[in-house]
């Protein structure tokens, strides 16, 4: 009788321990599967979802374009034809996007006067990219990977060229979106204003903005294409 009771008690404790173990493992695995997401609020998650939706739509558009390109190439190869026109169009698009070619189009001009640090200007450039700017120039320097505006207020430079007290940033893109993103309440210009109160920043939408090509060598000399 006593042996049966002992066995029953052991079984009960084993069952409780088993259930607790499963719950703990489930919790740990759940957290491992969503690193970071688990700490976001509902509002932040909504923002993440909106961004993911937008990016996925852009990626689908890119896939459709690439698919069309691949099919045209396949068809041309099968027919023994060349697709010079398409190749040239593709080349022009990639060069313009990367900064190898100058661009002209609608956009904005940002005028900055007074003491501002390189970090403040970099924040502006980051926000312009976020707002969909297709090409950006600081003064006459096209902003591409590797271009950094650095220095303390009153002594900032880009590509080893000192920027004067009054300088201009130009960007091509939707003037309304670029202007709205930069100047919204609590936006990047408001934040820069809090850090650099003596800097004066004004934004003007323009119908035509010209951005020069970069003078940088865009091809890596140390990296080899990965096959």
């Amino acid at each position, binding site marked *: 009788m006593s042996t049966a009771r002992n066995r029953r008690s052991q079984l009960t404790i084993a069952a409780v321990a088993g259930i607790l173990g499963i719950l703990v493992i489930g919790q740990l695995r759940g957290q491992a599967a969503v690193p970071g997401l688990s700490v976001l609020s509902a509002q932040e998650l909504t923002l993440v*979802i909106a961004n993911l939706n937008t*990016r996925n739509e852009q990626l689908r558009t890119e896939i459709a374009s690439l698919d069309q390109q691949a099919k045209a*190439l396949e068809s041309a*190869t099968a027919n023994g034809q060349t697709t010079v026109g398409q190749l040239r169009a593709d080349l022009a*698009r*990639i060069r313009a996007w*990367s900064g190898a070619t100058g661009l002209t189009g609608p956009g904005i001009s940002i005028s900055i006067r007074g003491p501002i640090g390189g970090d403040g200007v970099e924040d502006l450039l980051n926000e312009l990219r976020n707002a969909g700017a297709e090409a950006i120039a600081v003064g006459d320097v096209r902003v591409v990977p590797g271009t950094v505006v650095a220095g303390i207020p009153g002594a900032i430079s880009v590509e080893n060229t000192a920027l004067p007290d009054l300088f201009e940033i130009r960007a091509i893109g939707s003037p309304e979106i670029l202007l709205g993103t930069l100047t919204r309440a609590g936006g990047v210009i408001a934040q820069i204003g809090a850090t650099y109160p003596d800097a004066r920043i004004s934004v003007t939408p323009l119908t035509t903005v010209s951005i020069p090509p*970069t003078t940088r060598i865009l091809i*890596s000399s140390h990296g080899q294409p990965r096959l």
Partner: protein
Amino acid sequence: MRTWIRSVPSWQITLAVALLALGFLIAAQLGAEGPRVRYTTQERSPLVETALGLQDQQEALKRQILELRTKIGTLEAQGPGSASSLRDLYAELEQARNGAGLIGLAGPGLVFRLEDSGQPGAGADSLVSARDLRVLVQELWLAGAEAIAINGERITVSTAVLDIGGSVLVNSAYLAPPYKIAAIGPADLYKRVQASVSFQDFVIERVERHGLALSVDDLDEVDVPAFAGTVVIRFGQPDASVAPGS
């Protein structure tokens, strides 16, 4: 009564006390949370699932883009044209894609690993922010890096690095810590970064003062993947001028 208590096995009493304590703790926890927090918690679960689903989709779409670009490159290389002008055009395209970050690279460089402070009770300043990542990327560019990726997201001309809660969006992709910043550059890239006063300031302010964990691997070969995103020009018209060496 006393007899009845004596007849109850001790393990049952222990289990009953433990379950009572557990129930009390759960009730106390639920009672301490306000209605708004409970509502938010209920809402979060489907949102997290949606975000995870979209992230999975994004990974699949990125793979598809890279596969299509590879296919296009192969088709171009197999093109019927043997004329030197066409071969030149293919070579120019390959060079343009390389310069744009549309081709993955391997070469000497380093990988920074940046993580939130693990100190208990640390505040918001002890979390890695988008600005921290931008500062490290800028330091790498200034030191001569030629290609950079954060957690596999290639830094291109269109890349924005943004804060979202305690985490970061790069190329509109959601990234979670630890953040690995891979850079290809000259063999002495890390020495150059270390010599930078602004990098030293970053280490003092963010690592020593706020406890961020920063480590570096100086490597003979670092992989920086290709950009798997959109290459679209909607507003601008390309000029005829082309930069030298591109």
